[in-house]
């Protein structure tokens, strides 16, 4: 079975501090991994996907197959980063996303 675990339901950091949102997964094959974000009063939207290895809004995420992790990082948090973040996995060849419980990130001024 596939599972995504986000161990922190809430995370609060100060503006300018580094941010790391943790994501661990369990899946026996080669997954596709994503981070989705939901800003206040907005829709759930894609932030980044590991396959494209891009940096969006200063965020990066590295897939660590040995530790089965896909942590989201940003070196200097900004107030507009406050949002709900979901890590998600797509099993190989499947047409679905398996989401974690989400982490609510709050950036304090």
């Amino acid at each position, binding site marked *: 079975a596939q599972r995504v675990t986000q161990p922190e339901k809430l995370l609060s950091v100060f503006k300018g501090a580094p941010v790391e949102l943790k994501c661990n997964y369990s899946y026996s094959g080669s997954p596709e991994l994503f981070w989705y974000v939901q800003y206040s009063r907005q829709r759930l*939207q894609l932030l980044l996907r590991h396959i494209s290895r891009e940096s969006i809004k200063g965020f990066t995420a590295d897939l660590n197959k040995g530790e089965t992790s896909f942590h989201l990082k940003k070196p200097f948090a900004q107030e507009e980063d406050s949002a709900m973040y*979901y890590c998600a996995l*797509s099993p190989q060849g499947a*047409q679905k*996303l398996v*989401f974690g*419980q989400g982490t609510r990130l709050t950036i304090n001024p």
Partner: protein
Amino acid sequence: DAGVTQSPTHLIKTRGQHVTLRCSPISGHKSVSWYQQVLGQGPQFIFQYYEKEERGRGNFPDRFSARQFPNYSSELNVNALLLGDSALYLCASSLGSLVTGELFFGEGSRLTVL
């Protein structure tokens, strides 16, 4: 383009009733997926339709059904509602059938079962 649109936005039903939720994908998108999001949890996959055919089904009882129309819009139907069906139901559309591309979500239909 307004993006993915869902209706109704809110509705209240009683146990045992039936509900139909509707979704219009972004123009040009042929795939529609449905997710259930219970308060405090991440979205959970229910169905995916691509070119009017069911391509994936999550671990939900047969009370849940869906279909996709020739214009690619979709309906999610839930029969014999239970209190536990209270949730936000999200629709997402995409160009292709695989989720390696981006999913575009609607704002959701919030269902309350009393």
